[in-house]
């Protein structure tokens, strides 16, 4: 069964708006390494529109431009991921073959994906991930906790309706020069 992985940057108080964070080179390398193990991305509409075409464009950056090497490397690894699955009732299919739009049941679609063969499935975006965490479908969590309390915005696991507390197993905690701590957990 393929693993469903969720990786996100978060403030100490659990807010995930990407504009709060300025990942440094160490963090970009960390994300790139997680992404190397991905064979598919899963997005809701908002995160899909945030990531594409932004990262594919960075991947096409000719050498000598301003972008950091680590960003270009992340972009290349991102662009190499084979499938993009977007959950949206409103988006139209973009017409290029690696992306497909899904409008049907989340639970069923994820189970189907997991039963297929291939590398990890990476979910991006907080809303979708909350729903998947609630359904108990996320196998691995990477929370990159930044040394900042922001007070508001899109909250990690907001509105998650858990029948029981979700117990996890810590497999790694890694501190970076910038004060970010990467916490990696497996679902029990």
């Amino acid at each position, binding site marked *: 069964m393929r693993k469903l992985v969720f990786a996100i940057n978060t403030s*100490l108080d659990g807010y995930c708006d990407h504009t709060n964070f300025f990942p440094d080179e160490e963090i970009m390398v960390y994300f790139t390494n997680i992404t190397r193990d991905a064979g598919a991305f899963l997005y809701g509409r908002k995160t899909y529109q945030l990531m594409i075409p932004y990262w594919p464009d960075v991947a096409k950056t000719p050498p000598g431009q301003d972008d950091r090497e680590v960003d270009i490397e992340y972009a290349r690894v991102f662009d190499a991921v084979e499938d993009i699955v977007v959950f949206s009732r409103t988006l139209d299919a973009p017409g290029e073959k690696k992306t497909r739009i899904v409008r049907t049941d989340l639970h069923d679609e994820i189970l189907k994906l997991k039963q297929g063969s291939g590398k990890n499935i990476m979910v991006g975006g907080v809303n979708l991930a909350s729903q998947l965490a609630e359904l108990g479908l996320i196998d691995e969590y990477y929370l990159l906790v930044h040394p900042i*309390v922001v007070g508001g915005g899109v909250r990690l696991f907001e509105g998650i309706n858990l029948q029981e507390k979700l*117990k996890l197993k810590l497999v790694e905690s890694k501190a970076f020069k910038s004060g970010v701590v990467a916490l990696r957990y497996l679902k029990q």
Partner: protein
Amino acid sequence: MRKIISFMHISLDGFVAGSNGEMNWIKVDEEIFDHVGKRISETDTALYGRVTYQMMENYWPTAGDEPDASKHDIEHSKWYNKAHKIILSKTLEGADLANTTIISDNLADKLNEIKQQPGSEVLLFGSPTATHSLIQQNLIDGYWLFVNPIILGRGIPLFADIQERIKLKLLNTRQFTAGVTALDYTVER
């Protein structure tokens, strides 16, 4: 200047207790007690909100005397009875309690006065309501957090009604066998 450090066990989604104050999900074992005990033993002053204080006062004064007292019970009980305790409460009275000061008003002034005195750091144990108030008045100088490997979904948050961003500097992290990660931050000003 003395610092006030917020000392909390939290869930991964940032709660310090369940919606009804449940704390049964908090993992503490000998490894964690030993680690925590070291820093506590260097502190001469504890700060509490009323609710947490009442829980502490109900247990710690005599915990070390019980026949089945653990090593941690004995140590922390001894420490608790010696430590100076500051309680933030508008309703509690106790001018005659040993080693105890109750602050019922002029919180910022009184705590700043204490910070100017010589002494160790002040550990604010739990006390989410008091912590929220102190954060809003910019009186918390550091956070010593024990992140538990659990998502609660709802509960009493560590951070609430934050009006201004708080920049932090990570001093230390430590991973425990129980799956808890200690995060030690100082507030950057």
